[in-house]
């Protein structure tokens, strides 16, 4: 094969680009996540200067318990954001599915059945979002704003605004039990959720499609990627995560309220952004979303421990988001 075609050398010496070792690759892929983890540790250390109990096992367990629902919601929202969509409805889906589970339990259903009903509603809301975005072609922002509004109102409608106390003696096991000896369920489910999702996003072709669609939907379609099916799927997954998160929270708090998910939507989007996701899609990771959620919780916890008026929590969280985005912006500009 030494012939030249139209004067051009055809065969350059074939040199396959070298690939860094697996460890180096992981460090590179997860550099944002590593930075966030380091920042979380740093925040805890700084807080412990004022309030030594910040690093106590009890407080760390508190942080883990408090961050669990946000982590689960953020995972679903991340999937949607990675495809360059947005899901504003998760907060009200959280409230609504919590009310459904509460209603079911107070109507005498066994708790697994009540949970299934609640998850079904979550999947249903996700399917409505997904269908309107994918098959009708409406803007995700508008569609999920509608389901957000409707869901929030339905959460009041189903019980006429009353909260429901959970009396089932076993329901707490969903959150506080130990399915695997030695690991409490809320930790187990978060870690399992993150690990499974991260594996799927990195190693399953389906996960690569999620990023591909967020990166360039038109190119993805021309490559034969089933863009519509994947898009529909991520909204369903988001609804499912929101309802599962609501069940975990309900199992812990034992009281179902119509406003339980009110802050979750903004916090979940913030968690994804802190974790390295771009709202234009195609970037970020499940681990990043989890760390973002943990960071938000750690900041809230720190503000409490230091004794700052809790009205400042939002301002601190906002500034942290800004810093995260600025760091991302300037490190990317150099790369």
């Amino acid at each position, binding site marked *: 094969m030494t*012939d030249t075609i139209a004067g051009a050398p055809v065969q350059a010496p074939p040199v396959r*680009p070298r690939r860094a070792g697996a460890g180096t690759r992981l460090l*590179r892929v997860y550099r944002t996540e590593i930075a966030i983890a380091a920042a979380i540790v740093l925040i805890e250390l700084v807080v412990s200067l004022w309030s030594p109990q910040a690093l106590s096992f009890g407080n760390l367990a508190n942080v883990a318990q408090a961050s669990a629902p946000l982590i689960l919601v953020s995972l679903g929202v991340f999937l949607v954001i990675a495809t360059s969509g947005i899901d504003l409805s998760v907060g009200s889906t959280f409230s609504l599915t919590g009310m459904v589970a509460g209603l079911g339990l107070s109507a005498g259903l066994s708790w697994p059945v009540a949970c299934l009903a609640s998850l079904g509603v979550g999947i249903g809301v996700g399917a409505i979002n997904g269908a309107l975005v994918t098959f009708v072609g409406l803007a995700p922002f508008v569609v999920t704003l509608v389901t957000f509004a409707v869901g929030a109102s339905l959460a009041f409608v189903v019980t006429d605004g009353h909260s429901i106390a959970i009396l089932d003696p076993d329901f707490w096991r969903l959150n506080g039990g130990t399915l695997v000896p030695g690991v409490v369920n809320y930790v187990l489910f978060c870690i399992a959720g993150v690990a499974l999702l991260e594996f799927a996003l990195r190693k*399953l072709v389906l996960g690569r499609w999620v990023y591909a669609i967020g990166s*360039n939907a038109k190119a993805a379609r*021309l490559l*034969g990627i089933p863009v519509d099916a994947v898009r529909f799927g991520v909204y369903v997954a988001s609804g499912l995560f929101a309802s599962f998160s609501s069940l975990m929270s309900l199992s812990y708090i034992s009281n179902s309220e119509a406003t339980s998910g009110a802050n979750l939507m903004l916090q979940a989007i913030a968690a994804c952004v802190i974790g390295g996701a771009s709202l234009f899609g195609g970037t970020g990771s499940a681990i990043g979303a989890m760390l973002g959620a943990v960071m938000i919780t750690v900041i809230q916890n720190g503000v409490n421990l230091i004794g700052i008026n809790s009205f400042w929590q939002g301002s601190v969280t906002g500034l942290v988001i800004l810093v995260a985005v600025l760091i991302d912006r300037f490190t990317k500009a150099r790369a």
Partner: protein
Amino acid sequence: MTTSAFLLEATGIRKSFGATSVLRGVDLRIAPGEIHALLGGNGAGKSTLIRIASGSLRRDAGSLSILDDGPHPIAVVFQELALLPHLSVAENIYLPRLRQGFVPVRAADRRKEARAALAQIDERLAREALDRPVAEIDLHERQLIEIARALGSGARLLFLDEPTANLTFAESERLFAILRRLAGQGISTLLVSHRMKEIRAVADVCTILRDGRTVVDRQPLATLDDASIVEAMGQKAASRAAPGPSTPCSAGSRPGAGTTVGIEGQGLSLTLEPGTILGLAGAPAGPGQLIDALVGAAPDSDWNVTMNGAAADLRSPARAVRQGIGYVSGDRAEKGLLTTLPILDNVVAATRVATRRWLARRPEATVAGDALARLAIKANSVDDSPLTLSGGTQQKLLLARWLEIPPRVLVLEEPTRGVDIGTKREIYALIREMAVLGTVVVWWSTEFPELIEICDRVIAFDLRGEVSGVIAGAQVNEVALARATGMAA
């Protein structure tokens, strides 16, 4: 300077970008009331010259004098229309002229002026469209509104870059009638177009650029025939270059059994043996429809495609990919690259779909690395972003997608757009190599020399998007293509 009779007179214009010199002494003279065609191949320097003449780019050397009697004597009518869709037509026409923010608009007066400007273009449009938002106006009429805006700002010279690219035949005729009428009123047009027939129909004189120099300086079009224009543009009117190994090779040298592809539509029925390189020539409408049909982007197309005699199911891009149809577009940003994913995913994406693979396996990195090596793509690692590569290399990356599983049909849509000459050569070589291995290549290019050099057969489409002929083998040359397509390169 002595007062010149020219509206615009540029002499000896030079311009370099870094080490690349784009203009190396260009002359351009435009008289009042003329329609002046600016011709030249890709990279000849037309756009740079226009940007310099209109003041959006600084020249390195040369003189530029403009017969100035107004604040905005020159207006560029952009290819990508630059109107504000939610504002009314009238506002679009008068808003750019208002330079002070804190003064009353006096909309009624402004509207009257806008109406007068638009009436110069088209009475009916001025009557009916003035108060409607631009978004409701037909695309081709928006261009007229842009011209009206230029006139409203006092322009004496209009620059139109490929103004008919998205127009139907009738719409183009209407535009030309308007330009001619304006010429009668002393308003000149500098027209950049590749469509020879149009240029002949509308322009009076032409200037031809080649490699950053003026090679034909303001000559009446009537004195130039097609062949000499083609020659002046530097795209040798000679027929095929050396036949090369691209001629469909004997069955023996082809390892895999290739697929015979049939293409039917518009009264045309072509059978393409394995290894055929079929060119598509002409304005975007015609080739675009055939390409969309082939890649599964136009399920209701009138084109029918068969593979080994059986009808191909091309109802979606996924089906097309699974049936072995590969696609590479020169529009990398929009239709090609997955920019936030590493090179690895970009290379193996098509194979994953074609093989219905569900796991991103480790050996993919080896396969992708080999593909990069075969195409001499200099990447540090398959884990890097494709944005670390140059434009031409990104283009090769898109071709690398189709190496692991060679497609039965490779559809190329201007795959060498904006690519330097060395990379072009590499892309040609690769395409020939794939053809030798039995792939049928369907290639749309607006650069005739490419088609002439590489294709075995060419379907020519006219300006209306209809098939105007099939040119085979030795008959593929500049003049034949120009005649059949109505385009000059």
